[in-house]
């Protein structure tokens, strides 16, 4: 049985349906992420789990108990707020000890838990500092320590890395993973940053307009998106209009308007004539001179529109004969590779027959 379960949860604000009949189960010890653009309902779900908001319909179960009548202060669920919400008039130690005090944990135990909580986030030497004396990353850690100090069943994290700069964010991602492993508390993480979600989560629910669009492990979500929205939202992707052709041996034959036929990985239950989208990641598309590329099943000539040198890779935008612009990544693993092609060069682009995928919509 799942530790935390949402059963047909709906939340409306006036005419706006923020959360639309969502059901999901989160396992104990899981790092679960709700991912989606702003307004998709992810934060509303978090607030309903914490108890700050109540569902209009449906139930939320924790360990099999309906939480409907439990106020936030009585739920064994803790939140790390977006801007940390540290108490400015309390020291780091007082902030972290606050939940212990509220739970009336006796002095000796409380002291031990406080010490462990501060050690967990490496802030023992900052115990007597006030929040305004801390850096963004340190405030973040205090918020985490306050959330974890008396080992809640679930820790909810509302875009906790949003206020940090890029470098620090990467550091905190690693720290979060380690922290979660160490304490074994179930994390429910809300973010709109797909990179973060992919890096941190065991499972991700991609949300759109109050519904779960796809719930999967990061690699599956990235490699096999089931809808155009998910494909587009997670990472970069090339989307080409396509129509399913006659079946081929073990492949899906697709015809791309103005380009011709391509071979794609097989997909069950699509009838010839179905229209949809062929999606392929830039790193699956190769770009090179014709001799290099023609060994691939799917290959086309193209013209380099422009390229972005990014250090580790160079991103090429290549215009195909049908006018569609396709993005391809060329790793710069050997020196000088980035200078291979110039704007206006005629090149070949291609991809393997088992790369990419057909999406219905």
């Amino acid at each position, binding site marked *: 049985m799942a530790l935390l379960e949402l059963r047909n949860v709906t939340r409306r604000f006036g005419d706006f349906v923020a959360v639309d009949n969502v059901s999901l189960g989160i396992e104990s010890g899981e790092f679960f992420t709700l991912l989606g653009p702003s307004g998709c309902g992810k934060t509303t779900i978090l607030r309903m789990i914490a108890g700050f908001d109540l569902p209009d319909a449906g139930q939320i179960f924790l360990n099999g108990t309906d939480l409907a009548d439990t106020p*936030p202060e009585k739920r064994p669920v803790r939140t790390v707020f977006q801007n940390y*919400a540290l108490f400015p008039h309390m020291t780091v130690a007082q902030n972290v000890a606050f939940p212990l005090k*509220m739970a009336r944990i006796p002095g000796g135990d409380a002291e031990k838990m406080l010490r462990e909580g501060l050690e967990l986030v490496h802030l023992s030497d900052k115990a007597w500092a006030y929040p305004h004396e801390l850096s963004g990353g340190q405030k973040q850690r205090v918020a985490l320590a306050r959330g974890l100090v008396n080992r809640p069943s679930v820790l909810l994290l509302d875009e906790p890395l949003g206020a940090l700069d890029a470098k620090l964010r990467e550091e905190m991602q690693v720290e979060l993973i380690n922290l979660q492993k160490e304490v074994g508390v179930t994390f429910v993480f809300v973010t709109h940053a797909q990179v973060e979600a992919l890096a941190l989560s065991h499972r991700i629910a991609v949300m759109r307009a109050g519904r779960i669009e796809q719930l999967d492990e990061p690699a599956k979500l990235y490699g096999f998106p089931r809808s155009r929205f998910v494909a587009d939202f997670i990472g970069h992707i090339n989307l080409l209009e396509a129509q399913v052709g006659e079946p081929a041996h073990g492949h899906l034959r697709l015809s791309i308007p103005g380009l011709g036929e391509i071979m794609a990985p097989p997909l069950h239950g699509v009838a010839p004539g179905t229209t949809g989208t062929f999606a392929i990641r830039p790193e699956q598309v190769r770009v090179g001179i014709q001799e290099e590329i023609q060994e691939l099943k799917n290959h086309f000539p193209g013209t380099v529109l422009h390229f972005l040198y990014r250090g580790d890779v160079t991103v090429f935008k290549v215009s195909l004969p049908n006018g569609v612009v396709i993005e391809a990544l060329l790793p710069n693993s050997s020196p000088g590779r980035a200078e291979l092609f110039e704007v206006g060069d005629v090149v070949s682009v291609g991809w393997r027959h088992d790369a990419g995928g057909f999406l219905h919509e």
Partner: protein
Amino acid sequence: MSGPPYIFLLLFFVLPGVIMVIASFRHPGEFGGLAPLAASDPRTLQGLTLETYRFFFGDAIYAYVLFKSFIMALATTLICLVLAYPLALLIARSPRKRRDFMVLLVILPFASSFLIRVYAWMILLGPQAALSQLVNGLLHAAGLPPVHLLFSPFAVLIAMVYVHLPFMVLPLYTNLEKHNPNLLDAAQDCGANGWHRFWRVTFPLSLPGIFSGSALVFIPVLGMFAIPDILGGTGDMLVGNLIKEQFLVTRDWPFGSTLSIMLTLAVLLFVWIAARLSGTRGRYA
């Protein structure tokens, strides 16, 4: 030391202060004002003297009046605080649109004359007023003698509270309105019920507002003479009345100056204490 703020302080604070200090060491003039520092006739009072200070410290009545004024100011401040806090909290937590209107209601009494508002209390507290009738009716039923509400310390206190309440509400509201509502959610999330959320988060964070509101009430009440003049009985003289009398009735300017200096010193002492308190506890808000 330069710039307009210092010039302002110099002109309107230091200079009058110095004038008063000097005046307190001089003799009173025959018909009010001050006796000359140097006169040709050796029989007239002249020069500097410690007479007024000897007078002030020579009779406990002055210290007593000062003390009584302090108690009045303290009581007014505390009552204002207790009345103003829930109101300020209510305004601060109302929808933004309604807040401005509520603040307007708080400052609306300033639109009419201060004296008229104080005189109004003469009617409200008079023997024929409903309040007096009710109180004396209850006392009568309990077999107790009737009381006079008007011309009593009670009447003075009521009017003091009434007049100064907005000065407590406004700084409190300004402070409470700035509180991050997330902090209350965070406290609740950490297991704090309503009581703990107020006393451990809202209240400590509002201390700077409490201190500035208290200063804005305490200090004017300490020097107030109009309200005791109008609503107080003959025995309800406060230090403000005493000072006014020295200048306008008794015409003893040096002694009036001495009393003013004592009052100023007392206020400075209070402000210093308040600043110390708000300095150590309020800087994180």
